[in-house]
């Protein structure tokens, strides 16, 4: 006979064992090490760090291995780990002008102090499968320029000097932390940027793309895209001075956007900003475009009703861990609710059939007062 599906402990244990076996795959093929993933799947590692909001390449690589390469699952592992970490304090803002740049390009000026540095980019590769890689992964001699150390001035600074770019207010106080207080709307720009930098790359890409195609178009140029390492510094109250606690790789994108002026602002250029852990330039550019679209209110622009302008829509739907959880939960048992719907639909059908037999009575019987109990209708 048929027995209701009741999972039970054994089913869960068996599922976990099977999952482990599937993850390992054919055991005649050597197992991937975490080091290999960290070194050879770096862009996956970077995405997991960025959206997991935790800068730790080793753990991100482990998460990718454990999740069988499902990056959203890996991001989830990192997020769940992250929340258990004690919080020692906040760092100083990182100084991206002092970044050791591996890559630095500007689309708005042919050249600028600091130069154009192409760096390790896919941009001009021909997308032809390299069958040599399937045979062996040997790399030839590389003529590498040393990263630009010392100050590399931001391109925006040059526009700023001419007064052509909107000035940003200097904020001294520490912004709220999206992971420590519930999101409240309208959100400050700092909170919006936090949400965007840990938001899903695919979601941000599509949102940014929609602005380019005309849904709140904001005429973005990449003034500058830079990738490199910056120092993270923090005050240690017990010591009374600042220490360097490490170095992280960041991608920063500043867009310059044409702006014809509004009721409140003169014609000038405006900016969008993206800053993301690791080498993640698609994400950083997307972030800058979405940031700019969300700034319509402060710039006195019209609300065009575009999705990328809708702060609540963007911020509430950018997080892939929230999204995937809620999406996938509909596969959990819902038979209690479904049963109540079954009863309801059967009842509605009975009502309709009864009404069909007696044409004079409509479904509402014509006697409905619409008066709510408890004064709920106000």
């Amino acid at each position, binding site marked *: *006979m*048929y027995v209701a599906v009741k*999972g*039970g*402990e054994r*089913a*869960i244990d068996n599922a976990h064992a099977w999952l482990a076996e599937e993850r390992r795959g054919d055991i005649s093929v050597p197992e991937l090490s975490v080091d290999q993933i960290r070194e050879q799947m770096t862009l996956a590692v970077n995405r997991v760090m960025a959206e997991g909001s935790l800068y730790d390449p080793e753990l991100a690589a482990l998460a990718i291995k454990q999740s069988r390469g499902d990056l959203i699952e890996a991001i*989830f592992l990192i*997020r*769940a780990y*992250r*929340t*258990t970490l*004690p919080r020692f304090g906040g760092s100083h803002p990182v100084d991206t002008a002092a970044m050791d740049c591996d890559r630095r390009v500007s689309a708005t000026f042919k050249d600028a102090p600091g130069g154009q540095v192409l760096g390790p980019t896919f941009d001009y590769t021909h997308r032809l499968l390299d069958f040599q890689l399937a045979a062996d992964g040997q790399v030839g001699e590389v003529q590498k320029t040393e990263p630009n150390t010392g100050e590399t001035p931001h391109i925006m600074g040059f526009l700023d000097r001419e007064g052509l770019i909107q000035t940003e207010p200097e904020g001294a106080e520490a912004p709220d932390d999206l*992971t*420590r*207080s*519930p*999101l*409240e*709307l309208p959100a400050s720009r700092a909170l919006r940027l936090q949400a965007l930098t840990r938001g899903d790359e695919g979601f941000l890409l599509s949102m940014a793309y929609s602005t380019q195609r005309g849904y709140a178009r904001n005429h973005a140029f990449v003034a500058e895209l830079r990738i490199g390492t910056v120092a993270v510094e923090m005050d240690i109250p017990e010591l009374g001075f600042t220490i360097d606690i490490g170095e992280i790789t960041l991608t920063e994108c500043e867009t310059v956007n044409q702006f014809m002026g509004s009721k409140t602002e003169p014609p000038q250029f405006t900016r969008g900003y993206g800053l993301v852990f690791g080498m993640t330039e698609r994400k950083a550019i997307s972030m800058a475009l979405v940031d700019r679209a969300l700034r319509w209110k402060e710039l006195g622009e019209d609300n065009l009703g575009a999705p990328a302008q809708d702060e*609540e829509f963007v911020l*509430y739907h950018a997080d892939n*861990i*929230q999204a995937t*959880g*809620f*999406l*996938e*939960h*509909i596969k*959990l*048992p*819902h*038979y*209690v*609710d479904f*049963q*109540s*719907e*079954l*009863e*309801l639909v059967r*009842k*509605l059908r009975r*009502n309709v059939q009864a*009404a069909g037999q007696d044409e004079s009575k409509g*479904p*509402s*019987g014509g006697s*409905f*007062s*619409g*008066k*709510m*109990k*408890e004064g*709920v*209708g*106000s």
Partner: protein
Amino acid sequence: MTDYNFAYLDEQTKRMIRRAILKGLAIPGYQVPFASREMPMPYGWGTGGVQVSAAVLTPEDRFKVIDQGADDTTNAVSIRRFFEKTAGVAVTEATAEASVIQTRHRIPELPLREDQILVYQVPIPEPLRFLEPSEVETRKMHSLEEYGLMHVKLYEDISQHGTIATAYAYPVKVEGRYVMDPSPIPKFDNPKLEMAGVQLFGAGREQRIYAVPPYTQVVSLDFDDYPFAPTKADHACDLCGATDSYLDELIMDDAGGRMFMCSDTDYCGTRRVAGHVGAQAAALAEDAA
């Protein structure tokens, strides 16, 4: 168990949740924002309920978890294990023996006592959400006690269908002030929302906690001439014969034969032990033998 703090969450997070619970109890039905944490299970699997349970459990508690009324559904098993492991609490499947019960989609049939706490897992805490997608707008509506949209929705149901077409997550008004989503329990369970136990609701992804203290007035929204009616399948339980419990409907064979059994597995089991027999109990016993 030494790998984790008691009940998994760190103490600062628990304090934040505990403060939210107290404010929730002080403003029944009002959704208190809280900084929900990522938990080691996905959003949608009960992270809100798990965080509330983690903030409420003591070592002396006896913990019960049900999903769809049953203790042995996979997610109930998984959450029960989580707290056995991280809080070392005793667990039970018996409603009467539990001091804290975490639930998804049901209220146990056995009336809860004053010394019991019921923790609900909530997917969408905002009862107005499907009428108004914007949080900014719905917060304003609650603050102004402006529930006209809900009124219109229920009114249209009746004029179109002759009945209110909401079968679960049926909205209620708490203590004459806040309209509240009782989580996706079948409306059969709504009358039980006025109870002796403490009811706490946790929505992790949506970052909200709310509460209904004991003996608080909870009224299912309705109209004078279309009063609220809790409904269930018009059958008795085929295993224990109960006529007062919410029933699951099972498809038994290729011909579409049906069987009805209590959704509350502990209620059904307790009745059968006490000697109550449903119409198909004998046939099933033979089958199992």
